[in-house]
């Protein structure tokens, strides 16, 4: 064996790559190819035929642009909300929490020990019309006596924000934690105020974390359907809800497959735009 590797040293990188490539090939590329094949079929279940049915795509955009746009708007708002909430929190953990850092990180990650669905179901109880939160908000007149939180856009976006929060918090924490405190001291020595030091040193150095966090939040949030299904009404339906309904309820596989590609394609385009704006080197950290 050793001799083999010695003689064929050039093969080593390929052998190391092989498991990952195989994995992606079998579980990503093959299904993706199948999905692509399906997205160009026509006919009714179970007799679909491959007919290069590109109209699936145009019809998909035409019929569901509302849900598609809504998905990106919700995902966008949730991503910004995650960033606003996560940055100060992990900043504090990274620079001020001292020995308690790991504990606080654990607290951020702790909800992930419970499945996604159960976490979202918990919100059904927390935000229930007769629950304590709504009652309090009614008492202090933030909500009308008949107002509610569940089954509103607010509930859906909040649910997404909550569910994807750690994906934002952890990458930012990692980039903040790596900042050499001597750089901040140097900034102060050079007469910069704390604000200037933050803007000129901390923020740029944590940018890779912000970029990674926004991507990890935005991409899955755009395809999410659980929050809209459980916390929303038909008026909050996202593209994920349409896709799952087409796959499982109306058995319109080509329609569902083409919408999946439209979603993927749109995300990819947005990603490329984002990469151009922030600079691609930051995408890779």
């Amino acid at each position: 064996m050793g001799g083999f590797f010695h003689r064929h040293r050039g093969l080593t990188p390929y052998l190391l790559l092989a498991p990952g490539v195989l994995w992606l090939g079998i579980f990503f590329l093959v299904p993706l190819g199948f999905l692509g094949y399906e997205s160009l079929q026509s006919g009714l279940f179970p007799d679909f035929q491959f007919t290069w049915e590109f109209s699936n795509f145009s019809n998909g955009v035409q019929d569901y642009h509302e849900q598609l746009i809504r998905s990106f708007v919700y995902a966008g708002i949730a991503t910004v909300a995650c960033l606003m909430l996560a940055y100060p929190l992990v900043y504090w953990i990274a620079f001020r929490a001292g020995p308690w850092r790991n504990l606080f990180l654990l607290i951020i990650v702790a909800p992930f020990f419970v499945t996604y669905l159960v976490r979202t179901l918990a919100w059904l109880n927390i935000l229930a019309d007769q629950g304590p939160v709504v009652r309090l908000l009614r008492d202090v007149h933030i909500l009308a006596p008949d107002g509610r939180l569940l089954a509103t856009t607010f509930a859906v976006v909040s649910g997404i924000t909550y569910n994807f929060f750690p994906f934002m918090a952890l990458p930012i924490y990692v980039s903040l934690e790596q900042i050499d405190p001597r750089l901040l001291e140097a900034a102060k020595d050079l007469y910069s105020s704390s604000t200037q030091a933050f803007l000129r040193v901390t923020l740029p150095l944590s940018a890779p974390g912000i970029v990674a966090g926004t991507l990890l939040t935005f991409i899955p949030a755009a395809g999410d359907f659980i929050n809209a299904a459980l916390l929303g009404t038909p008026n909050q339906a996202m593209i994920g809800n349409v896709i799952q309904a087409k796959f499982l309820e109306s058995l319109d596989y080509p329609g569902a497959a083409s919408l999946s590609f439209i979603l993927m394609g749109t995300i990819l385009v947005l990603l490329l735009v984002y990469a151009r704006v922030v600079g691609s080197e930051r995408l890779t950290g």
Partner: protein
Amino acid sequence: MTNSRMTRVELLRRGAAGATMLSLPALVAACGGGGGGGSEGELKDVLNFSNWELYIDTKKPTTLQQFTNKTGIKVNYYEDVNSNPEYFAKVQGRLSRGEGIGRDIFVSTDNDRPVGEYVDNGWVQKLDKSLIPNFSNLIAAQQHPPFDPNRDYSLPWLSGMDGIAWNEDLTDPVTTVDKLFTDPKLKGKVTVWNSMGDTLGLVMLENGDDPAKVTDESFDRAIEKVQKAVDSGQIRRFTGNDYAQPLANGDLAACMAWSGDVAQLIADNPKLHWNVPEQGGIIWTDNMFIPLGGSVPTACTYMNFVYDPQIAARIAVGTSYISSVDGVKAFAVKLDPASANNPLIFPDATILSQLHQNDPTMFSNPEYNKKWLAVQGQ
């Protein structure tokens, strides 16, 4: 307790995996467990049974235990049917290749699309009626369903009624769909089902249309009515049976609800009520089928067992749903007089006369399906 028939949540959870499943049907079906194929004609010592959640008696000795004691056949009882279309999506790949799905019996509801697909595509096997002498206990009303006119492939498991439930603390009685859809006091405190047959069935009856004979006009009229109630904010959500908890805790004032669910909820909360709408309700039935690859003799032995009225009574009382087995009530009175006198479990002639069935052709109409999803925002 609250999710005896279908939970949207379960559907979603599995739905999340759905996209992957479709691309790898064989792999997924293989994960379904159990053994299948190759033994269709032999009696086996294990029965693999797929059913809805909380849809069988649980009080010991359970009927499943009694079956094993009597026949020596062990039952692997899977509560893995969470929605008819979803179960169908899961198994259709293997069935279409003529392969088994690791089950000897599964159930499918008559007012949903798949039931016709199973029979028409030849994906289910004929019953061996010589092994089901209790077949004669099947009530007359269930002997000739449109999807299986001679009951060659199926036997009813349990039935339920579509009606309206309301909470007396939050509203006066809601006995019509129009009140449910337009009473301003109910705004945002109403849900309807995400299954087309159930919801539109009740709406069609309200419109004076026949749900058993759907036309494009009557369908559009029904959709329009639902759309109005969605646009006005009256309808809060489309649900599986996840209406049960919000109904019980007061988030909903009234909703479309299944009889058996509410029968169970009323036991804990007497403020809840359920009734067949004034213009009529819908009755649906879950049917047992033997999929390709399932053992016909084993499945038929079990079907014969549950068509013994004494056993059927335990199942009906244990689930609060309606049995199609003749003579059940006499045994139910002995088991649990309160249940035996509950019209939700043993509907009397007056209620039965108000019930209608869905038009089976409605479910496979792609235009209808599209419109039905659209009204749900999908």
